[in-house]
């Protein structure tokens, strides 16, 4: 394992320190936590619903990179691939509540769901109005009443963008919850990996793939996918992922937003080639794409791969996706 780090046990605090020191105009660290909160001039004057997200580290720029005017109010970073603890989330909730309530955006992992729930209970004891929504866009996992359900992956960033813009516009907590649930229901993602991520404390990739193999349906914590296939040209990968996601929508009418997300070690060059192939394929199928985004947004340490997210959108959502924000990572 070759990584530019110091002490394995100190990775997250050092990373957060680097992030806030190089972006002091945008964010500050909440004392004694690894949570960051908006630090721009507008923030202290503003009265809007606070939006807090968070989760394990290793997905940078998610979530701290999306804190800023028009997106998240605060983000809480846990240990690598490990949910943050409720006390840290609770501090973030307190830091962003302006009396209008706080919305928690939680990715669907049992640890995240439970820790955010506990933090919510702690904040409610302080009479803060807190609601949460659970993002579960990874359609490579079967959903069923009896399981953990689908995971929350790259689509989370579209949800954060739309809700952040809507909150800035003055939407109420209840309106945001409703909007968030609708947005999540219309967001679907599949990821592929060419090489697994190496968790620093483990020291080697989470799973092994042969030189010509690619795994479909992986999660952002090295969760295994649904099949291993021979690596194929970008356009075949684009077609396979697009079709699988489209088939999961009840119909293919209306407008779509597209996110091509790099998993951490994949050059932008390849992400753009893949995005080009996705757009070609969607065009052939007469699918209207009204917003698209490419880049390392929701990564998995040094994983090699990409994910594709399609979101069915209406005009107002497109407007919110397009609105300028002041963040590190959007």
């Amino acid at each position: 394992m070759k990584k530019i780090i110091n002490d394995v046990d100190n990775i997250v605090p050092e990373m957060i320190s680097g992030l806030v020191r190089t972006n002091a105009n945008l964010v500050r660290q909440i004392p004694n936590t690894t949570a960051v909160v908006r630090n721009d001039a507008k923030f202290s004057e503003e009265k809007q619903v606070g939006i807090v997200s968070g989760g394990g580290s290793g997905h940078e720029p998610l979530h701290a990179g999306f804190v800023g005017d028009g997106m998240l109010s605060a983000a809480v970073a846990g240990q690598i691939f490990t949910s943050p603890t409720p006390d840290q989330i609770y501090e973030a909730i307190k830091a962003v509540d302006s009396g209008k309530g706080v919305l928690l955006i939680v990715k669907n992992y049992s640890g995240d769901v439970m820790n955010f729930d506990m933090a919510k209970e702690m904040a409610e004891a302080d009479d803060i109005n807190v609601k949460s929504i659970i993002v579960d866009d990874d359609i490579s996992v079967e959903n069923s009443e009896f399981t953990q359900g689908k995971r929350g992956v790259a689509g989370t960033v579209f949800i954060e963008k739309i809700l952040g813009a809507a909150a800035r516009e003055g939407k109420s907590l209840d309106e945001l919850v409703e909007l968030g649930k609708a947005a999540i229901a219309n967001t679907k993602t599949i990821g592929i990996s060419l090489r697994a991520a190496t968790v620093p404390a483990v020291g080697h990739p989470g799973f092994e793939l042969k030189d010509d193999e690619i795994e479909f349906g992986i999660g952002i914590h090295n969760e295994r996918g649904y099949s291993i296939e021979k690596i194929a040209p970008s356009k075949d990968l684009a077609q396979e992922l697009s079709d699988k996601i489209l088939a999961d929508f009840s119909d293919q009418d209306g407008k779509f937003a597209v996110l091509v997300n790099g998993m951490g070690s994949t050059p932008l060059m390849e992400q753009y080639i893949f995005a080009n192939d996705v757009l070609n394929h969607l065009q052939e199928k007469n699918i209207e794409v009204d917003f698209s985004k490419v880049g390392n947004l929701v990564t998995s340490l040094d994983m090699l791969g990409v994910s594709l997210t399609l979101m069915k959108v209406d005009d107002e959502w497109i407007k919110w996706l397009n609105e300028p924000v002041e963040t590190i990572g959007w």
Partner: protein
Amino acid sequence: MTINLEQATKWIDLFVDKLEENRSTLNELDTAIGDGDHGTNMDRGAKAIKEALAKKAPADVSELFKTVAFAIIQKVGGASGPLYGTAFLDMSKAAKEETDLAKLISIGNDGIKRRGQSDVNMKTMIDVWQPASEALASGDLTAEKVTEFLNNTKDMVATKGRASYLEEKSKGHLDPGSQSSAYLFESLLTAMEG
């Protein structure tokens, strides 16, 4: 059977020791069907409990459980943090009035089920907590039984927690949270014996 502060303190001390000793066993179990950190998580919790108890000796069982709960909630994270944390927090609240051990454990078990939105047969720690709580109620919990409950998780298919992503492939492995819970109940039995 009731539990007093001395017994409860011994219980927690034994549990904490076992967690520290078996850090790598728990990590290995979690590597097979999870993300390999259950030992690290529980060991972090164990150290936090020790530190908190060293700082201030609790006055009663309720306060002891609260100290344990807060240490776990603040330091463990992941899935096991809120689960063990909720169990001890709920037991702490109940212990203000209640001293019956079986009732307390049953309340802890309910807390885990509520927090985890889960039940028996999902290949989680509940598959140790719930039968253990029932056996305590009928007065016949033994170390052998605890091991039996733990071993029963081996052939289950996980439907909650990270192991559930593996579906059928989760079969054939012990559930790591059930292993740490087995340590908890083994420690409890030893503490209650004398």
